[in-house]
């Protein structure tokens, strides 16, 4: 179970404090797939980063009873002078996973071949994205945070990612942010609308879209 209680978050801007979250309450049970809807700037990504623990809330509490992933396929944390393999080893060490077990999977899945042993700075953006996605799959999590469905590589590779995540890990919880309504409808059991800094929960994805669409008028 993941529980957020009265989570608030604001950022300092040149025009004073900008309140993004004003008391968010959210509970995610194991295996649940929850979509988060909201217009641009509603704070969806902020919420994802707070659930992941990459950012701390100003107030409120977060209980993580599940192993929560980092925001999926995040490629920004690669050290360019290190090889793909070095970056993988680092992440495995941080999460207490065995990199000897993860390496064959990443090697195979990312299709990077011998480039896995080359510095990441020599990679194309597509290669980076493939490595990032493969690394996200190499560590076992109970809950995946997905900020926009990853469009990694060509359509064949994209399908492979979808299969790895949504088929092979369909028993895991997922929190999905996407502007593509078809994705949310396809993958989520229920959805929440984030507006004015609070969460409106719906048991049904369609109901959530009704509110979301109304707020977009």
């Amino acid at each position: 179970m993941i529980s957020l209680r009265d989570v608030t978050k604001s950022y300092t801007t040149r025009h004073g404090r900008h309140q993004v979250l004003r008391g968010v309450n959210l509970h995610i049970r194991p295996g649940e797939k929850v979509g988060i809807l909201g217009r641009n700037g509603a704070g969806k990504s902020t919420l994802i980063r707070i659930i992941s623990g990459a950012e701390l809330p100003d107030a409120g509490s977060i209980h993580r009873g599940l192993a929560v992933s980092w925001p999926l396929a995040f490629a920004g944390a690669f050290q360019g002078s290190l090889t793909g393999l070095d970056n993988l080893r680092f992440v495995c060490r941080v999460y207490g996973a065995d990199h000897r077990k993860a390496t064959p999977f990443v090697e195979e899945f990312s299709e990077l071949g011998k480039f896995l042993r080359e510095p990441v700075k020599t990679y194309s953006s597509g290669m980076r994205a493939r490595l990032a996605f493969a690394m996200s799959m190499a560590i076992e999590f109970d809950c995946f945070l997905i900020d926009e469905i990853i469009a990694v590589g060509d359509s064949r590779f994209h399908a492979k990612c979808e299969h790895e995540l949504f088929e092979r890990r369909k028993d895991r919880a997922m929190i999905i942010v996407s502007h593509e309504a078809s994705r949310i409808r396809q993958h989520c059991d229920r959805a929440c609308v984030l507006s004015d800094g609070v969460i409106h929960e719906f048991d049904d994805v369609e109901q959530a879209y009704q509110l979301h669409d109304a707020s977009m008028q």
Partner: protein
Amino acid sequence: MTTYQTSSLAASLRIQARVIWALVLREIITRYGRHNIGFLWLFVEPMLFTTGIAALWTAIHATHGSGVPIVPFAITGYAGVLLWRNGVGRCADAVEPNKALLFHRNVRVLDFFFARLLLEIVGATASFLLIASGAIFLGLMKFPADLGQMLAGWMLLAWYALGLGLVVGALSERSELMDRIWHPITYLYFPFSGAGYMVSWLPLKWQKYAEYLPTVNLNEMIRGGYFGGAVEVHFDVFYLIKANLILTLLGLAMVADVSRRVEGE
């Protein structure tokens, strides 16, 4: 299924140790790569410095006719300078290049500092041990009179580097200015640091000011351990502990404050 419970203190410490170790290994490969002697540079570089200083000071008779043997005087002084100067220097600008790693929940700003400090402390200690052993083996210096006191002094020095590193590291994150002026500060401070003189060589009226400087106390303690009764030393262990405690607590508070700002980006 794996769950990562982070509730107990022991579990948290285990995770932090794991993260710091991961950062240390990452830092070693980033800094030294896999070419030529690789991570051996970690202590070869300070050794070259200390050897150079020992040779230079021998040439210019830097002990001012005090009768203190110059080789151990230079080594005991300069090895310590390298510890605090490099350790603290590496803390300046430790956050910026690593910021993206904060996406991994268990990686915290404090870990960046700890990882770099650990690396510098190990490097400086290894280079000190090697160069001193080498000089003893070659007959350029004697075996220390009081190894225990030297060791205690060295550990207090490492603690001092840690405390000051956190303070300077946090300041450098708050303002780029700190990052730029830290190097000039260390160079200008060097003549006062106690590496190049003994308090007893100073005029009496200056001695009490020198005794306020932690690095002077540390140098005197380490040299007192090495030379034993052969030299007159001025140091106060309780003063050092107090100074280190204050620096460490201040540093931790400042890093906690910086973490909140950094992670909010």
